[in-house]
């Protein structure tokens, strides 16, 4: 077969393409079982589901589970907790890496720059199990290192970082930023490296100092990617970080620290209320889907971003 024939050949072309279709089979089957079958499983949200009766045998309850979500004060509180924690995380998770990248960009010594990068990227790769174990120890009221430091240096009484609702939220946001800000700078640093140096040269000729250059060249150049990251993050506003919350929270802070995912886990898997748990999960998935579509659309309109 020559090149022209190869290019113009239309239709399914099974003779050559069966191999391509064959390659698709394992992943298609895996996705069918582990992604599409659970999607059908959401009918459990309309049942009083009992695992031993199965979907066929469990009692239908219509919209009851959803009425329960909106009728119960604690489930609404959980949604609110999720949104407020996410919003803080998104905002801080955008501002801190942005500023950090700008500051790091001002450093001229390459060896120093690399060392800083090596250190700040590291926490991203450690799991919340490890960090949870460390933080619970370090933030302990009873002689934890942080409270000892605050007491010895500032004379502050021990703070219940993980036992008081408001302090818990604070700790969650700060520890999230601490873990992820370094990794977040990668994209910004790549953008900074891509700015055309002749822009700065022209600015110097016009008499602009470093601050003016940052204000009028660097920051405008970083805006598109910042908008993309920000809008895409909005799509995940109902994900407030299950791993982190689950490894840091305890029954004392459920009121202000419980989020949708941890709530689903406790009501469904621990207490066995499967139908209700599925309903909360479905509610979250549907809202999440709309948010993702809207956020990708916004990223496309405002910053011309496409995933494909």
């Amino acid at each position: 077969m020559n090149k022209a024939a190869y290019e113009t050949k239309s239709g399914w072309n099974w003779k050559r393409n069966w191999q391509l279709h064959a390659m698709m089979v394992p992943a298609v089957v895996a996705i069918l079982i582990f992604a599409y079958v659970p999607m059908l499983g959401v009918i459990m949200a309309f049942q009083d589901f009992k695992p031993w009766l199965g979907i066929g045998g469990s009692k239908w309850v219509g919209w009851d589970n959803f009425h329960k979500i909106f009728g119960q004060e604690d489930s609404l509180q959980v949604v609110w907790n999720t949104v407020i924690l996410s919003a803080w995380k998104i905002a801080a998770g955008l501002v801190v890496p942005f500023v950090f990248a700008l500051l790091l960009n001002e450093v001229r010594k390459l060896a120093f720059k690399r060392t800083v990068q090596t250190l700040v990227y590291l926490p991203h790769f450690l799991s919340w199990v490890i960090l949870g174990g460390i933080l619970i120890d370090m933030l302990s009221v009873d002689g934890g290192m942080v409270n000892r430091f605050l007491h010895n240096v500032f004379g502050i009484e021990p703070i219940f970082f993980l036992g008081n609702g408001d302090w818990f939220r604070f700790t969650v946001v700060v520890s999230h930023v601490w873990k992820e800000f370094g990794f977040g700078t990668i994209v910004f640093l790549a953008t900074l490296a891509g700015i055309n140096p002749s822009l700065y040269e022209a600015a110097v000729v016009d008499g602009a100092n470093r601050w003016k250059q940052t204000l009028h060249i660097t920051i405008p150049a970083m805006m598109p990617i910042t908008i993309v990251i920000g809008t895409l993050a909005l799509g995940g506003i109902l994900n407030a970080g299950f791993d982190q919350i689950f490894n840091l929270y305890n029954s004392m802070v459920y009121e202000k620290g419980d989020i949708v995912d941890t709530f689903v886990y406790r009501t469904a898997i621990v207490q066995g209320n499967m139908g209700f748990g599925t309903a909360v999960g479905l509610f979250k998935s549907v809202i999440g889907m709309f948010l993702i579509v809207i956020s990708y659309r916004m990223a496309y309109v405002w910053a011309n971003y496409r995933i494909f």
Partner: protein
Amino acid sequence: MVYKSPSQRIFSIVNVTFLSLLSIACILPMVHILAVAFSGKAAANANLVNFWPIDFTVDAFRKTFQNRNFVSSMGISVFRTLLGTLIFLVLLMITSYPLSKEQRVFKGRSLYIWYFVITMLFSGGLIPSYILILKLGLNNTIWALVLPGAVDVFSLILMLNFFRNIPKELEEASHIDGASHFTTLFRVYLPLSLPAIATLALFTMVGHWNSWFDGMIYNTKSENYPLATLLQTIIVQQDFSKITMDPKALADISNRTVKAAQIFIGALPILLVYPFLQKYFVKGVILGAVKE
């Protein structure tokens, strides 16, 4: 030498100091845990240890490795990491290759793409997936840990974009030489994509090693717990009801230095692959950003 004004010099000093402090803050918790792990029991329990061991001893590490639960959990973690990454890579290769073809060459491509992308937008949630694993009888097996995440659509998109940047002439040449698609994939595309594959493989390995939730909900027996799940249960939750353990090891676990040693060993593989990771992941993060 570039001339610096006094204000620039002051900014420079403040900036470097600030950046240094922040960088140190990123590793201080690990340093603290390591110091506790190497300290004597009395000093650790009296909250005297900060960033340097007091009464240096390796006792905590010795006790940790004498604990049979800990060692076997570590084995399970290693196994799931290797098996999970292998399955992930094979599926990634053979799936992203066809999807990297143009629609006019590979009819049905957009159908497949949508089939995968829909799963990024909508998911059944935790409970249906959990029930599915139980109904399939995968609970208490390694398959519950490696199969559900075997196809990652985001990695798929990164990989197919990478494949698209490989010149089409190479594929045409191998085709004219009589190579099948399988041969082209494994003899032409694969060797050319090693950096991308290494990036995604390292990320997947870290993901498997760190993964604890699946190990917790899909295993009713603590003997099957991977290390991350074991650490979650005994150190974070401090829940010993699910763990069958000999009383001597149980007494050691409430010991602060032993806890610290276990946490450190749990993080050690990540610290060890980190230099390799760092070499690749910056590339990996911007991998999908550049399109033809």
